[in-house]
C-alpha cells in the first residue's frame, strides 16, 4: 500500500493509513486510505459533529419548516448563517432557527415540558408554517428526553401540523456523516409514504442529495422542467417538507451527493423498487451525460440533447477560454465528501488544471474509491487531514489554489495559497453549464489575482520592476499564450452576478408543454 507518512504525524502512527499517494500502476485494490473512523483526539481535525450533519447539512435546507434544536442555544446558533443554501421561500430556513434553550434546571429535572412549550411558541410565532423538524443534541440525548412522545402529543393537539424528529446528537458517529445517515433513515421510516403524491406528468423524479448551494438546485430543476420532467421532491435543498413525504411516488431517484443521501435512495430502491441513478451536476460532459441518462430512462433523450446543444454552444467557448489559461495549474481539493469525486476528473478534463491532492473531511472509503479513481497518478489522497498535515501538504505540493472551507481557507491564505470555498462556493452556483464556467472564472480570478502576485514580494529584499501602475489578470494569464489565443474576442465569463433571479421569474408559460402520454403508451 503506497501510504504517505507525514512528518508531523509520525508520532500518531495510526494516521499513516489515512493518506496514500496514487502511484503508477496503483488501483483500488492497492491504494485506498482508511476512512470514517473515530477522530484522533487533539489532532485538530476539521470534522464537525453528527448533529450538524443531520440538522445543518440535510434538515435545514428544507424551506417551509420550523427547524427546532432541542438543547442549549449553542448548537442552534453555531449552525445558523454559516451556509449558503438559499430557497425560493424567501430564504425562510436560512433566516430563522429555533432552540429550546435548555438550561441547568432542565438538565436536572428534564426538558420535555420545555420542549412542548417551545413547539407551541414556535408555531404561534409563525402561524403560516405548519411543519417542524426537531433535532436532538448531546445534552438532551444524554438526559434521555423522549422527543417522539412530545411531538406526538403536540400533533394530537394541533391536527394541522406535522413534526419530524431526528435523534442525532453530536457524538453519534465520527463526524457529520453519522448525522447524514441518521436523518436519511429517520426520514424514510417516519415520513415517506405518509401522504400520496400529486402526479402531474409522465416522468417523475426525486432529486436527491442536492442542497441548493447558491441556487444549484434551481439551475438543475430548470433543466428537468425544460425536459418535461416533474420533480416530485428535492432531498433537501429548496425542498418542501410535504413533497418529501411523497418520495415513494417517483419513477426514478436522481442522486447527486451520494455521501449524504445514498442511504435514502438505497432504501427507496429496496422498499419501493425505485431505481437509483447517480449523476454529476458538475462539468459539461458529466452533466450532459447525466441529462442524457435521465432522458433515456424516460424515452425523451431528444429533449436532453436539445438542452445540451443549446447550453454547450453558449458556454463551451468561455469554458475553453478559461481552460487555455488554467492549463497545468495545481489544485488541492479539500471538500467535505462528494465534491472530491464530482470535481476531481471534470476540472482536469475541462479546465486543464492538475489535481495534486484530494482530501475529505468526513467522507467514507466509498468516497475515496471514487476520488482516487478519478484523479491522476501522483495525487495525494488524505482522509480527514488535520491542521498540521494540511500545512505540510501545502508546503510540499505548492498548489496554485485550494478548494476548501472558510476556516482552512484562512490557513491557506496565510501560506499564500488562494482559496475557493468548496462548500458554499465563492460566486456560484457552480452546477449547470453556466455554473461550471462560473467555477472556472472563480479559479482564474483567484490564481491570477494581481494582489496574490504582490503578496509574494518582499520589498526589502526583492528586486522587482515598479514601472507599472497596475497589472491586469490578462497580463498575467496570457503572457505565455499564442498570439491567436491572446486575440480571443472572449474576455471571460459573460453571465450575470445572479443567474437565479431569471429562473425564479419564469412561469409555466416559459416551459415547453409536452402532450401527456396515453395510458397505453405509459404501460409500455
Amino acid at each position, binding site marked *: 500500500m503506497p501510504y504517505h507518512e507525514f512528518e508531523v504525524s509520525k508520532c500518531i502512527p495510526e494516521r499513516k493509513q489515512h493518506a496514500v499517494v496514487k502511484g503508477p500502476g496503483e488501483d483500488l485494490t492497492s491504494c485506498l486510505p482508511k476512512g470514517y473512523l473515530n477522530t484522533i483526539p487533539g489532532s485538530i481535525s476539521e470534522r464537525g459533529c453528527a448533529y450538524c450533519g443531520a440538522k445543518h447539512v440535510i434538515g435545514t435546507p428544507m424551506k417551509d419548516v420550523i427547524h427546532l434544536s432541542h438543547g442549549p442555544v449553542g448548537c442552534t446558533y453555531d449552525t445558523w448563517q454559516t451556509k449558503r443554501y438559499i430557497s425560493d421561500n424567501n430564504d425562510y430556513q436560512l433566516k430563522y432557527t429555533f432552540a*429550546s434553550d435548555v438550561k441547568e434546571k432542565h438538565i436536572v429535572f428534564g426538558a420535555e415540558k420545555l420542549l412542548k412549550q417551545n413547539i407551541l411558541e414556535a408555531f404561534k410565532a409563525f402561524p403560516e408554517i405548519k411543519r417542524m423538524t426537531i433535532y436532538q443534541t448531546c445534552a438532551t440525548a444524554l438526559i434521555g428526553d423522549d422527543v417522539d412522545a412530545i411531538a406526538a402529543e403536540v400533533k394530537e393537539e394541533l391536527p394541522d401540523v406535522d413534526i419530524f424528529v431526528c435523534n442525532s446528537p453530536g*457524538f453519534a458517529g465520527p463526524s457529520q456523516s453519522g448525522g447524514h445517515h441518521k436523518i436519511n433513515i429517520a426520514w424514510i421510516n417516519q415520513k415517506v409514504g405518509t401522504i400520496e403524491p400529486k402526479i402531474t406528468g409522465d416522468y417523475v423524479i426525486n432529486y436527491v442529495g442536492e442542497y441548493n448551494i447558491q441556487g444549484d438546485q434551481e439551475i438543475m430543476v430548470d433543466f428537468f422542467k425544460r425536459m418535461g420532467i416533474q420533480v416530485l421532491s428535492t432531498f433537501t435543498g429548496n425542498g418542501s417538507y410535504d413533497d418529501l413525504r411523497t418520495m415513494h411516488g417517483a419513477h426514478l431517484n436522481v442522486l447527486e451527493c451520494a455521501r449524504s443521501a445514498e442511504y435514502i435512495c438505497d432504501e427507496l430502491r429496496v422498499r419501493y423498487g425505485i431505481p437509483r441513478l447517480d449523476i454529476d451536476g458538475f462539468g459539461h460532459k458529466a452533466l450532459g451525460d447525466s441529462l442524457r441518462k435521465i432522458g433515456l430512462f424516460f424515452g425523451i433523450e431528444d429533449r436532453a440533447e436539445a438542452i445540451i446543444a443549446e447550453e454547450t454552444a453558449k458556454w463551451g467557448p468561455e469554458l475553453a477560454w478559461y481552460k487555455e489559461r488554467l492549463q497545468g495549474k495545481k489544485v488541492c481539493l479539500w471538500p467535505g465528501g462528494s465534491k472530491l469525486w464530482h470535481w476531481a476528473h471534470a476540472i482536469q478534463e475541462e479546465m486543464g488544471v492538475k489535481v495534486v491532492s484530494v482530501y475529505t473531511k468526513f467522507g467514507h472509503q466509498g468516497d475515496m474509491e471514487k476520488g482516487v479513481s478519478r484523479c491522476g497518478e501522483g495525487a495525494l489522497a488524505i482522509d480527514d487531514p488535520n491542521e498540521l498535515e494540511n500545512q505540510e501538504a501545502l508546503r510540499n505540493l505548492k498548489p496554485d489554489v485550494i478548494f476548501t472551507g472558510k476556516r482552512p481557507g484562512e490557513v491557506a491564505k496565510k501560506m499564500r495559497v488562494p482559496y475557493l470555498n468548496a462548500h458554499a462556493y465563492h460566486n456560484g452556483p457552480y452546477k449547470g453549464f453556466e455554473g461550471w464556467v462560473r467555477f472556472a472564472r472563480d479559479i482564474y480570478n483567484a490564481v491570477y489575482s494581481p494582489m496574490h502576485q504582490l503578496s509574494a514580494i518582499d520589498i526589502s529584499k526583492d528586486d522587482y520592476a515598479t514601472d507599472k501602475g497596475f497589472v491586469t489578470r490578462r497580463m498575467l494569464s496570457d503572457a505565455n499564450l499564442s498570439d491567436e489565443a491572446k486575440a480571443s474576442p472572449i474576455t471571460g465569463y459573460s453571465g450575470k452576478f445572479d443567474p437565479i433571479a431569471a429562473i425564479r421569474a419564469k412561469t409555466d408559460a416559459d416551459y415547453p408543454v409536452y402532450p401527456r402520454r396515453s395510458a397505453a403508451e405509459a404501460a409500455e
Partner: protein
Amino acid sequence: MNCQVKVKDRVGTINPIFTCQPAGAQFASIGVKDCIGIVHGGQGCVMFVRLLISQHLKESFEIASSSVHEDGAVFGALDRVETAVDVLLMRYPHVKVVPIITTCSTEVIGDDVDGLITKLEEGLLAEKYAGREVHLLAIHSPSFVGSMVSGYDVAVRDFVKKFAKKGEPSEKINLLTGWVNPGDVKELKHLVSELGVEANVLFEIESFDSPLMPDGTAVSHGNTTIADLEATGSAMHTFALNRYEGGKAAQYLEKKFKIPSTIGPTPIGIRNTDALVKKLSQVTGKPIPASLVKERGIALDAISDVAHMFLADKKVAIYGAADLVIGLAEYCLDLEMRPQLLLLGDDNAGYVNDPRIKALQDNVDYPMEIITNADFWELENRIKNEGLELDLILGHSKGRFISIDYNIPMVRVGFPTYDRAGIYRNPVVGYGGATWLAEQMANALFTDMEHKKNKEWLLNVW
C-alpha cells in the same frame, strides 16, 4: 418608570443572539500565547466556534477537540482528553498552556476533568514531558449555563486563577479588556501608554489582525504571555472594563491578592472614556497629558459635526453583550439619540441590579425596554407585529436579516461582524471609538436616506 426591564416571556429561542459558554472560553484561550485549548465534547463545539471566529476576524486559530464519540458518551470520555493532551503536546512543541474546556455533554456525563489534570500532571507531564513547561487547567463551561459571555468571564478568571502569583508589588495595572476586537485593544493600549501607565493586558489580541507575509509563514495568535498572567497577582490595580467579561477575574484578584479593582464602566463614548482616563490617572498618580486632551477634542469636534444635526432623536435598537449594549446606549443618549430597545442575550440575574441600568430607569423620559434572556424575535416581532419604529440598529451580524427585511440601517458592532469588511480593526472604545461609532452611525443614516430617497438632498450643503 419609563424604562422597563423585562425577561423574555417565551421559554424558547427564535434566532439566538449568543452562542454558548464554550465559545467564550475558546475566544479567551486564543488570546494566550503558546496556548491551544482542548474542548472536551463533540467536534461541532470546536469546529463551529473556530469557523465563527474565522468569519469574524478572517483569520484562523488553533483549538483542539477531544472528539467525543458514541462510546465516550456512554462510558465516559476522560480517556479522550488524555489522548488529546498527549497528541497535542507531541505535535505542537511550542505549546505551554492547555486549557481543558468542558461542554454540556461532558458536564452531563460527569467527567472529572480536574481529577484528570492532577493525574496527568503526576503521570504524563512528569514522565513523558519532564523538563517541558506545560500548564493544564480546567475551564468548566457547560453550555446550559449562561452564554458565550459568561464563558469568557469564567475563562478569564480561570486563567488568572491558574497563573497569578504574589510578587513584588508593581506599578503595573491589570487591564482586562473584555471580549473586544483587535482595534479596541490597540486603542486601549494607546490610552494607557499616553498616560505613561504599564499594563498586563488580558488579552493581548492586537496581533489577531496579522499580516500576509511573502514567506507565507505568518500565523495569527494572541500575545498574552504566562509572565503577563503571573504578573496579574502583583499589580497595583485591576481595571475590568466590562463588568460581565472579566469582572469575575477582578473579584478573584481582589479577594486573593487584595488588589483593588475598578469594574466598568465600559469605556464607550466620551463620558465613559473620561471615567476610565480619570480613574487611571487617580490610581496611578500620573497626570492626564495634553495629548489626550487634544485627542478628546478632535473626537468631540468630529462628533459635534453629526450629533445634534443628524443623530439627535434617532430611534435605535441595540443587541448583544450586556456591557457593549449598555455602553452603546449610554453613548447614544449622550448623542441625543433615543435607544428604544436593548436586548441582552442571556439570563444573567445580575443585569437588573446593574447600576447603569438603574440609572437608565431613573432618567430616561420616554418608553424604553430592556429585555434579558432575549432573542432576535424580541426585536423582529416588535417591528413586524407591534409597530416598533426604528431609525437604526446596532449589533452584530447574526441580526442582519432584520435590518435587510425591514429596511432599517444597521451599524455592525460586537461579535461576530462577518458581513462587513474590517470591522474588527476599528475601536468602539476610547476617544477613537467614540469618533468611529458616531461617524459610522451618521454614514449609515446617510446611505439609508439616499437609498430610500428620504431627504437625501439634505447632504448637499453639509
